[in-house]
C-alpha cells in the first residue's frame, strides 16, 4: 500500500519542552491506532508520522515545518505548544499551501499574532483551542468566589502569549475593568527575568490581592519566592502556562500549594477518543502507567490532533493537499478534548473552540501535588472537585 505521511512539530527540548513531553508517548499510541492504515478516497494508505522538534525556537520550528513539507512531503501538518512553535509552523504551511492543524495556543495569539485578517481568515491552517475570553471568564469566576479587594496584579511577559493576554483591546484589561476589577500592569518583561522586585513593589504599593498572568515556569518560581521574601502575600495567584505542569509545581516546593491555573484537559473531562474509544481518564491512566509520569494536559490535545487528522484524512477525496484541506475544514467530531468543528464567522472560520475550566493545585495522594477543578462556570459538563481556596499562610 502507499504511505501517507503526517508531520508533527512540537517543542521537545528547550524551555518549553514540558509542552512536548508527552508527544513521543502519544505518537507511539498512534502507531498502534493506525496500524491498519487509513482509507482515503477508497484506497488504503499506510500511515507514517514524522515527529520534529522545534527546540522551543520559533526559527527552528519554521525550518522543520519546511522540511516536513518539502522533503518529507507530508499530507498534513500537526503542531502544538505555545505560539513560539505553532505560529511559525502554521505560517510555513500557509506559505507552502499544505493543510495544518494546530493547538495549545489560545486562538488570539495564533490568529492575530500571525497578522490574520478576520475578513479573509486563513486558507490552509486550522486551529483548535480555547480563547482569551474563556481564560478571563474562568479566572474571574474563580476570583469572585474568594473575598478580595478586586485589585489584580498582571504579569505579562513580552512573548506571544504575554502580549496577547496583556493587549489593551483583546486581552485582560477591558473585561477586567468592566467586571469591577482593577488591573495593575507594570509592563511587559523579558522571559528569564532574574528579579521581580519592581513588579512586587508596584503590586504592594497598589495593595494587590490577586496576581495573574502567563509566565514561563522559571519566572513564576522567581516571582513567587521573591514575593514571599519581600512580604507580599496575595490571596489568589492564578497564572497561565507556568503552573500547568506538575514538574514545575514540585519545583516550587511549599509555594506550590494553592496556586491556580487554567485547565484545558484533565482525566475528569467527560469526553472519549473517537479513535481509541478511551475515556479521558483511561487515556491519562495509560499514560501514567506507560510513561511512569504524572499526567499532563497536552496529552489530551496531542491525542485529539490525531483524532482530527485521522477523521479528516478518511473523509478526504484524495490525498491532494486541497482535498485534505477541504476535509479538515468540514470536520465535525467528538474528541477526547471535546467537540471539534470549524466554519464559523470571522476568525472562527479557522478556529474551533474547546472548553476550559479553572484548577487549583493542592497536596495530593498519589503525587506530591495534584490538580483539582474548582470552577466549571464555563463548561458545566466538567465536574468540579472543590471550591477555590485562598492561598495558605
Amino acid at each position: 500500500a502507499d504511505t501517507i505521511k503526517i508531520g508533527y512539530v512540537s517543542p521537545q527540548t528547550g524551555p518549553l519542552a514540558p509542552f512536548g513531553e508527552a508527544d513521543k508517548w502519544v505518537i507511539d499510541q498512534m502507531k498502534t491506532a493506525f496500524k491498519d492504515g487509513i482509507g482515503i478516497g477508497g484506497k488504503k494508505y499506510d500511515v507514517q508520522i514524522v515527529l520534529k522538534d522545534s527546540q522551543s525556537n520559533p526559527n527552528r520550528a519554521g525550518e522543520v515545518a519546511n522540511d516536513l513539507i518539502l522533503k518529507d512531503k507530508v499530507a498534513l501538518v500537526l503542531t502544538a505548544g505555545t505560539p513560539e512553535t505553532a505560529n511559525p509552523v502554521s505560517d510555513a504551511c500557509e506559505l507552502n499551501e499544505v493543510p495544518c492543524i494546530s493547538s495549545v495556543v489560545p486562538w488570539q495569539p495564533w490568529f492575530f499574532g500571525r497578522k490574520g485578517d478576520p475578513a479573509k481568515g486563513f486558507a490552509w491552517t486550522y486551529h483548535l483551542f480555547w480563547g482569551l475570553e474563556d481564560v478571563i471568564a474562568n479566572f474571574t469566576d474563580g476570583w469572585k468566589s474568594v473575598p478580595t479587594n478586586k485589585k489584580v496584579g498582571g504579569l505579562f511577559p513580552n512573548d506571544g502569549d504575554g502580549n496577547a493576554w496583556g493587549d489593551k483591546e483583546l486581552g485582560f484589561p477591558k473585561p477586567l475593568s468592566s467586571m469591577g476589577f482593577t488591573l495593575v500592569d507594570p509592563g511587559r518583561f523579558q522571559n528569564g527575568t532574574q528579579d521581580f522586585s519592581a513588579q512586587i513593589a508596584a503590586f504592594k504599593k497598589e495593595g494587590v490581592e490577586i496576581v495573574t498572568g502567563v509566565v514561563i515556569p522559571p519566572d513564576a518560581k522567581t516571582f513567587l519566592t521573591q514575593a514571599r521574601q519581600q512580604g507580599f502575600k496575595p490571596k489568589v495567584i492564578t497564572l497561565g502556562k507556568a503552573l500547568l505542569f506538575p514538574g514545575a509545581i514540585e519545583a516550587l516546593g511549599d509555594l506550590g500549594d494553592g496556586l491556580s491555573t487554567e485547565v484545558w484537559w484533565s482525566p475528569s473531562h467527560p469526553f472519549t477518543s473517537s479513535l481509541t474509544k478511551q475515556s479521558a481518564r483511561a487515556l491519562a491512566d495509560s499514560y501514567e502507567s506507560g510513561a511512569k509520569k504524572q499526567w499532563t494536559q497536552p496529552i489530551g490535545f496531542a491525542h485529539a490532533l490525531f483524532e482530527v487528522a485521522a477523521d479528516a484524512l478518511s473523509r478526504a477525496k484524495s490525498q491532494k493537499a486541497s482535498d485534505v484541506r477541504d476535509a479538515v475544514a468540514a470536520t465535525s467530531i467528538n474528541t477526547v478534548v471535546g467537540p471539534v468543528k470549524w466554519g464559523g464567522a470571522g476568525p472562527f472560520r479557522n478556529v474551533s473552540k474547546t472548553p476550559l475550566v479553572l484548577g487549583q493545585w493542592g497536596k495530593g495522594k498519589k503525587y506530591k501535588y495534584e490538580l483539582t477543578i474548582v470552577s466549571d462556570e464555563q463548561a458545566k459538563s466538567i465536574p468540579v472537585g472543590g471550591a477555590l481556596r485562598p492561598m495558605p499562610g
Partner: protein
Amino acid sequence: MIETVLQGILLGGLYTLFALGQSLMFGVMRLTNTAQGDFIILGAFAVIAGTSLFGGAPVPAALAVLPVAFGFGYALQRYVLNGTLGKDPLPSLVVTFGLSIVIQNLLLEVFSADPRSIETGGLNTQGLQIGDSLSLGILPLIVLAIALVATGALQWLFARTALGRSFRAVSDDREIAELMGLNAKKVYALATGIAFVLIAVAGALQGMRTTVSPSDGPLLLLFAFEAVIIGGMGSFWGTLAGAMILGITQQIGFRLDPGWGIWFGHIVFLLVLVFRPQGLFPKTRS
C-alpha cells in the same frame, strides 16, 4: 528609591559571584570564558543532583560539590583549556563556546528542560522586615555577604599571598615564570580550579534563589561579563563595584518599565565603554 537601590545592591551581590570567576580567569590567563554562565548552571544542577544523594539536604550537597568543582576546573584547564591559550583569543573562545553548547545540551539530555531549583527548606522565602514597607530577603542578604567575603578573599589571595604572586607572574610572562620554578600549567589549572569553586557557589545560590534550566547560561555570562568590564579589569573590588552598578541600574530600569530593565543595564555598560573604556575602577598598579 531606597528600596530600589537596596534591591539593586542585593542583585549586585549575585552578579558579583557570577563575575568573580570570570575576572580571575581573565586576570591570570587572559582567557575569556564564554561558557561561564553555563558552568554556573552546571554547578546548580550538580548541587541539585547532589541534594538527592544527600537525602534532600542542600547545604552538605553544595559543600560536597565545591571540591568536585575545583577538581573539574583543574582538570578542564589542565587537559583542555591549556591547549588553547596564546596570543590569539580565538581558540579559547571557540572551545569555551563549544563547551557552552555541549553543557547546555548535556544538561538537557540528562535533566530535561524542566526548570528546577534547590530546595532550601523555606530559606528562600524568608524576609527581613525593615520598617513597615521594606522587606529584604534573607537569602539575597546571605548572597551579598558571601559575595563580599569572596571578593575580599580573592583580592587578598591575589595581592598578598605567594599563590597570588604566582598567578600574576605566570600571567605576565609564562616562560620566565617557569624558569623561576613555577609550573605554568599547574598554576593555570589552580586558578581555574578556584574560579570553578566560585562558579559552583554562584550556581548553588542561583539555584536556591530561583529556578534554573539548561539554557539559562548565556544570560548569566553577559551579566558576569558586564560587571567585569564596568568595574575595570584586573581588580576584584572593581568587579564587585561593577556588579553593584549593574544591579542598581537594572533595578532602576525595571521600575521604569520591566521590559527595559536588562536593556537599561546593557546600555549603561555600553556607555561606560564609550566614555571609560578602561572601566570605572581599573587597577592602578602600585
